[in-house]
Structure formats: C-alpha cells, structure tokens
C-alpha cells in the first residue's frame, strides 16, 4: 500500500521597496520608462562607480521586518553575491548574507528566518525586437531597485496554505506602503522550497527550489504539481534530486533548471564599498511608533469598537485607505453599520466603475457622513439617497445642498400625505375594493401609487401607516 506524504514548504519572497530612487544611486525607480533611461554610472556598474545606501530603503525594510515580527539587528553587513549574467552589471549583486538586517520573525503562523536588503538586477529582453531570434537586449532601469528578501521557515504544509500565506504577506506589505503588490510587473516575486516526507515522520525530505511563481495561482499550481511529482518519484522507489526547477505556466509543470552540482558558488564576501549598516534602537523605535495598525489588528478592532459584522470588517480592511475612509466617515458623525453598508455597497460600486479602487476617493468621507445623517434624520428617503449619492459622487457637492437645490426633502407635513392618499384611494376604487375583499397584495400597489404622487419624497414608513389607517377607516 502506498504511503501518505506530507508536503513541507518554505518561501523566499522578493519585494521591491517603494522608494523614489534606487538603493545605491539617485536614479528613479519608476516602472515602465523607456529602456535604459533610468540609469547612471552606479547602477550600470561603470568602472570606478561606488554604491551609497539609500536611507529610505532601509526604513522601508525595517517597517516590513517589524510587521513580520522580526528583530532588527543593530549591525548588519552588505555582502557581494558573485555571478555572471548580462543583467547583473557589476558581476555581483550587493545583498546581505551572514548578517542580515532582521531575523527571527513570526507572521500568520509561519516563522520568518530573515529579512535582508539587496538590489534588483536589470531585465533581459528576449522577445519583442526584430532581431530577437539572434539577440537579447538588456534594460537596466530595474538594476539597483531596492528589494527585501523575506525567507520563511519550512512551516507551510500545503500549496493552498502557501498561497494564503503569500497573500496575507502581500496584503501587509501593500498596507505598509512598502511594496505595491504588483506581481505582474514583478515588484513582488516568490520562490518556494518544497519537499515531501512520509506523514508522521520528522526528517525533512530532499527539497527542490521552484522559481518563477509570479502569481498566486501559479504559486499554488506549481506547488501542487511539484508535490505530486515528488510523491510520484518516491512512490516509484526513486529519489528526489536537490535542484532548482522552473514553473512552466504554459505546460503547467515544473522543469529542471539546474542541479545541486551545477549550483553557483556565489563566493559571498563582505562588500568593502559599504560600511556596516548600523540601525540603532532609537531609529527602530521611531519607525515602530509610526507603524500603521496592521490589517489583522484593525479587523479585530472594527468588530469590537464599531460592532460591525466580521464580514464587514474584512471588507473594510481590504486596504488601508478603505479602512481609513470608514473610520473617517464615522468620525464625521455617521453610525458604523450604515457607513459600512454605503462603503461596501454604493461607494465600492462607483469606485469600481471609475476603476479608482479606493485612493483617492472623489467623495470625501465627510460628504458620505452628511448623506447618512440626512437619511437618519428622515430628511430624505433611502431611494432618494441613492440618487443624491450619484450626484454627490459626480459633483462633489454636499448631500444637503443637492437635496435643498433639487427639492428632494421628504414630505413631513402629514396632512399633505393624507391628502395624497385620499386622491389615490378615490382614483383607484377597484384596488381598494380588492383590498377590502381580502386581496392584501393590493396594498403594495397603493403604497406605490402614493409614493409616485409624492414624487418619492414621502416617508415610505409613514405612508404605510397612514394608508393602513385610511383603508381601515
């Protein structure tokens, strides 16, 4: 009979840090510029050029490391990782090796071994040129963009758990404004170390490193495939080879890239061009003090503080901007649940329509709070409110102004409503007769007629009550 196997997975995540300039020079980090327009002697490795560390990249990395529960090391050391590749202009990557910036974290149930700073490489362009069959071009705009590498412990036990973890990690990095979360543009990338072992055993199996997992779907599919492949190899009495494998998204499988024997000897040694990076406790404390509340904590607080349902809390913390918007709406006087309903409903719909996600919302939270207040006070009805919302969103005017200018105030004079009801009953004798004959469904029709006569401005609740009285009389 066949053994049951347990997968063991650890992730290595590379996240570009959202700095204006590169990690060792002043060049822009903007994505999408014409090739080789954001380059200088430093980031293309001209003879004699030297790196100078960008402080802001360090701050971002510290922020990420703190969010992952890591300890920031007071002294960390840059090291050179030596290998040849055309997109690596100096023939080495400046990274951190023996003394990384941060160690020993714990995030979303997974241990974090280390978080370190390094520079990104350029990009080889194998396609898209008339002579691409013969040549490869290199774009160095990305060369020197700051990265953090985050290495987890092998604490993940399934492909879906790995994908979920990566998703939570992405959410947090984006939440911190440390990374833009854009996997398509490669600003967030993931490699995975995968092994399998017979269920219930402790020793780790031989691992393969799977690269090129540039989406959550690829990560999960690649891991599923790789786990199945390793189990099959073992099931056939074979041995898993320690190697680097590449996810081929088109073929839907991992393929061998290089074996352990072919693995690079990176000849790491301390980078002599950069002094040790010293981060004192005061700097860490200052950054910690300015850290925003993380998504998980905020979700819990929303439930406790505002008594919104868990579902709402989850939706409202999809991004920091959205959560801020929610709280600003409340601060402007709105009750929590109506605020939540409007934000998750109409606002989300409109923002999606204009493809603005949440930042910046063209509708300030004070305006939304104003609208909600008008409903609560009974000044306008819910259906009128939707129209007002549309107009507010389009023009930015206050709800009160729109209501006043367009005469949308709910009819509050009961005698006026009673008059309208009398008219409706007089004109709809048949319906009244049917109602009195026990066909109660006709009641809704009559309410509709009254509302129509009131041009929607009557309070529907009150119309109900008064109509029932009139019919009962």
């Amino acid at each position, binding site marked *: 009979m066949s053994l049951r196997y347990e997968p063991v997975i650890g992730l290595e995540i590379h996240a570009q840090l959202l700095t204006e300039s590169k990690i060792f020079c002043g060049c822009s980090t903007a994505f999408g510029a014409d090739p080789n327009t954001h380059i200088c*002697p430093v980031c*293309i*490795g*001209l*003879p*004699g*050029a*030297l*790196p*100078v*560390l960008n402080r802001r990249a360090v701050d971002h990395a510290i922020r990420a490391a703190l969010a992952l529960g890591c300890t920031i090391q007071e002294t960390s050391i840059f090291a*050179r990782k*030596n290998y*040849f*590749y*055309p*997109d690596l*202009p*100096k*023939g*080495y990557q400046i990274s951190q090796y023996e003394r990384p910036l941060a160690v020993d974290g714990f995030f979303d149930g997974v241990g974090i071994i280390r978080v370190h700073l390094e520079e990104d490489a350029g990009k*080889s362009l*194998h396609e898209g040129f008339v*002579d691409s069959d*013969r*040549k*490869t*071009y*290199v774009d160095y705009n990305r060369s020197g963009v700051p990265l953090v590498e985050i290495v987890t412990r092998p604490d993940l036990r399934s492909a879906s758990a790995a994908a979920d973890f990566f998703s939570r990690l992405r959410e947090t990095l984006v939440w911190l404004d440390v990374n833009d979360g854009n996997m398509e543009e490669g600003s967030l990338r993931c490699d995975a170390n995968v092994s399998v072992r017979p269920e219930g055993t402790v020793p780790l199996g031989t691992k393969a490193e799977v690269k090129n997992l540039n989406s959550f779907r690829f990560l999960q599919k690649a891991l599923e495939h790789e786990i199945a492949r390793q189990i099959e190899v073992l099931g056939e009495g074979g041995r898993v080879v320690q190697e680097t494998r*590449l996810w081929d998204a088109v073929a839907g499988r991992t393929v061998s890239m290089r074996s352990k024997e072919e693995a690079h*000897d990176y*000849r*790491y*040694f301390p980078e*002599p*061009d*950069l*002094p040790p990076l010293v981060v004192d406790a005061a700097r860490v404390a200052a950054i910690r003090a300015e850290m925003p509340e993380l998504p998980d904590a905020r979700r819990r607080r929303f439930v406790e503080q505002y008594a919104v349902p868990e579902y709402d809390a989850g939706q409202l913390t999809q991004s920091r901007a959205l959560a801020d918007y929610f709280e600003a709406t409340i601060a402007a006087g709105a009750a929590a649940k109506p605020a939540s309903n409007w934000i998750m409903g109409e606002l989300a719909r409109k923002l999606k329509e204009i493809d603005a996600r949440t930042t910046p919302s063209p509708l300030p939270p004070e305006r939304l709070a104003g609208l909600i207040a008008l409903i609560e006070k009974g000044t306008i009805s819910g259906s009128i409110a939707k129209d007002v919302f549309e107009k507010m969103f389009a023009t930015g005017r206050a709800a009160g102004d729109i209501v006043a200018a367009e005469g949308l105030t709910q009819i509050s004079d009961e005698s006026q409503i009673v008059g309208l009801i009398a008219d409706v009953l007089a004109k709809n004798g048949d319906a009244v007769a049917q109602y009195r004959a026990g066909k109660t469904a006709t009641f809704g029709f009559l309410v509709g007629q009254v509302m129509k006569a009131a041009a929607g401005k009557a309070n529907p609740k009150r119309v109900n009550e008064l109509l029932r009285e009139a019919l009962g009389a």
Partner: protein
Amino acid sequence: MDSPQVVADIREAVRSRARSATDVCRDALARVAALNPALNAFNTVVTDRAIARAEAIDRDPDRWRDAPLAGVPVAIKDNLCTRGVRTTASSRMLEHYSPPYDATTVARLESAGAIVIGKTNCDEFAMGSSNENSAFGPVRNPWALDRIPGGTSGGSAAAVAARIIPLALGSDTGGSIRQPSAMCGVVGLKPTYGRVSRYGLIAHASSLDQVGPIATRVRDAAVALGVIAGGDGADATTASEAVPDYGSALTGNVRGTRIGVPRRLLEQGVDPDVARAFFAALDVLASRGATLTDVELPHARYAIPVYYLVSTAEASSNLARYDGVRYGFRAKGSREDGPARAARADGDEASLQAMYGRTRACGFGPEVKRRIMLGTYVLSAGYYDAYYLKAQQVRTLILRDYEQAFDCERGVDAIAMPTSPVPAFKIGERVDDPLQMYLADVFTVSANLTGLPAISVPCGFSAGTLPIGLQLTGRRFDEPSLLRLADAYERDTEWWKQQPPIA
C-alpha cells in the same frame, strides 16, 4: 622648454601674470612630446582640453586668484576616470573606453585650477610592482631607461621625476604610489584609507585602494592632498573628519617627534645600498631632534601573504564587470559581433559563456588573470575560511601591531622603513617570477592592510644612479606628522633637487 618648476612657483607666476597658464601648459605638453617616446609614461595626452582649460584660466584671472593649483599642469593615472577622456587602466579591456564622468579627485584638482595634460601608464588595473603589466608596454625609469620605474603608478612617478609635470595623481593598493615614487626619486603619499574619495578610481581592491599625490617635493604633495582630501557623498567609505591645513604642518620642527624603527624586519632581504641610505636618513632626522626608537611589528612578516589573499579576493569580484556586455572590449569570433545573446530558456547559455570566456581571456593580461583566479579560489566554498577569513584575521593582528607601536606608553609618532627593499630592477628581470615580484611590496603593503597613511621621500641613490626612498607610516589621519617629518628631512637634504639625466 622652460626649466622644471614646483607647484608654488607655477601658481605664483600664473597669478602674477608673469606667465600665462597657456604658456605653462604648452611647455608641459612640449615636454611630454619630447620625453614620452623614451619613457612611455603617458597612455593619452589631452592637448586640446588642456589648452582650452589653461586659456579659460588666463581669461578669468580673478576667478582663479585663490585657487591653490591655478595653472599647474598635472598628470592623472589612467585608472582615474576623466570625463570624455579615454581611461584604460592600461588594459586592453578598456582600450577605447571613455567615461561619462570625472573621478572626484580629478574634479577637485580641476576646480583648484589644475590642468590635466594626460593620463599616465600603469600596471593593468593597478596590479603589479614594476609597471611591466601594461597593455601599452612598460614605463621606463627616467634615471635608467632599461629599468622599471616601479609600479603600479609608474607613469605618474616617471612623469614627475622627468619634470614633465610637477604633480600627478596615483593610486596605492599595496605600495603603488610609494614604491614607484621611491624608485623614481620623487615624493609619494598614500593617505589614510577614507581620507580621499575613491569615486571614479577604477577599483583594484576596494578595502585597500587609496588615491594620492606624487610630487617633486613634500610641500607640493601637501597642497595636492589638501585639494583632494575630504568626505565625498559618492563614496561611503570616505571619512567626515575635517581636512587640516597641511601646509601649516610644515614647520620644520621635529624636535621630540618619535620615530619607530622595526629593525628586526629589516634584517633580511634589504639591498645594502638601500639599508645604508635608510639609516643615514634616520640620522638626518635625529640630528633635527627626532627621537629614534625600536619597535616590534611581530605580524608584519605575514603582510605579503595576507595582502595577496585580500587584494586578489576583492579584485576577482571588482573585475567581474568587464564581461563584454555593456562597454569595453568584447572578443570577436562569436557567431556575431553584436550584443551578446543572453542565456535563454530555450538554451543559449553556451554561447553566452563562450563570449564571456573569450572576452576575458583576450581582454585581460596574464597578471590580471592570475589574480582573478587566485581571488576566485580564496573566496570559493570550502576555502573561504582557510584563506580569505584567516587573512582578514591576520590583517587585524597587523593593525594591532601598529596601534601598539603608536599608542603604547612612549609610543611613536611614525614608523620608518625603506619604501622598497631594492632599487629599480631591470625591465624583464622579474617578470617570470611573480613571487619575487610580490616581495618588492614587503614594506608597503602593511599601510594598505591597516589603512594607515604613509609617505615616501627620496633619501639617496644606489650606486650613484638609482633613487632610494624613505617611507614613514603614521597614525590614522595624521598626515600632518608625516608631512612635517618628510618636509624637515627634505630641508636638510638635496636629494629631491636631483634630476634624472633625461630631464
């Protein structure tokens, strides 16, 4: 051609308009034209740019009135980047390479009014001790044309010695300023590591490299150091310490200054003429009131192996960028001569590797390749601890020896040694014996391993014709004491006034 001058004279002549900067510049260019065919000290002469700059100074004398080097023609070692001017590091790899920016030291010299007239020959990527490792042929010693000028800043030292220019920049990784200065009979100063920016210096070994001046006399070296020294936002290893007024250190008063002599280190391998000149020089300083005292540097004998492990390790990495992809030499003979085809998923790794291999095999000379291989080896998995790490540990011990000598009770202010154990040897004499060649650096490498400043001043001649240098090593950032001692010595001797026959 005018007679050779020192920096202060030229500057004064230009300032008083006794001579125009253009005139001074043309003279220097004429001397290059006359002497370089014999010396091969220059890889590139920058006639037009030099004259244009000199004319600019002449047009606007007010602006340059207080510039410390106004109108002074200088030469720059060819491993310092000069914007728009070919910078080769004497390598075939960079034979046609023209940088888009100036090294910080070059920019500072030019803002002080100096006129760059050319780029000087050196050992390829500043690796060597004789200037024979140049893709453009050896430099010849102005004192004896069949001999080496020392290395690696041989072209700069020879050009100053031949009185083509009064001042040149060199770089010193293991003695590359001091040793050729000694062998050519001029003054060479390696500043404290971090005192002078390395930005724009083509790296040999980053933790050892330092740019410094070569001049005919100490006073000029002091002026030049004042110009190039100081922190640089483009070099994270520069120190922020204020730059003192080096000129004011030259008081001539060395009474009570304590000079340490590591006698045991000098017992073996030192040429008798060198030893005689060295001890005579100490007597001169003693007669001025300096105190001589013995010091022990127990780990100094490991300096050469430590140096050749650390420097080659760093060099193997620093020189990885010369891969034929972006700039510089790329070997022909691949399937095409256009941009390299990178490794592709469909497999073209082999052609890329072949391009790298051929480019580096043809672009680098034998000594550079030897050091890349050595350095790659000492950093390799399984050897790192035994070689690189061990070397770094011993490096620390060597530094402690020096600190002990300087900082102990009754510690010394400077440590004296001959700059080179031997005078200039004949071209070709040691090329087949790299170990023998490496030993020429025995007294100079420690200053680089420790980061301490060191100066070489002319202190006599061997057999009447070959210059000998006295080296003084000082405390971190204590260039003033070194300059004061060297200047005091210079005041009592005539060596620096000697000119080679060719000049």
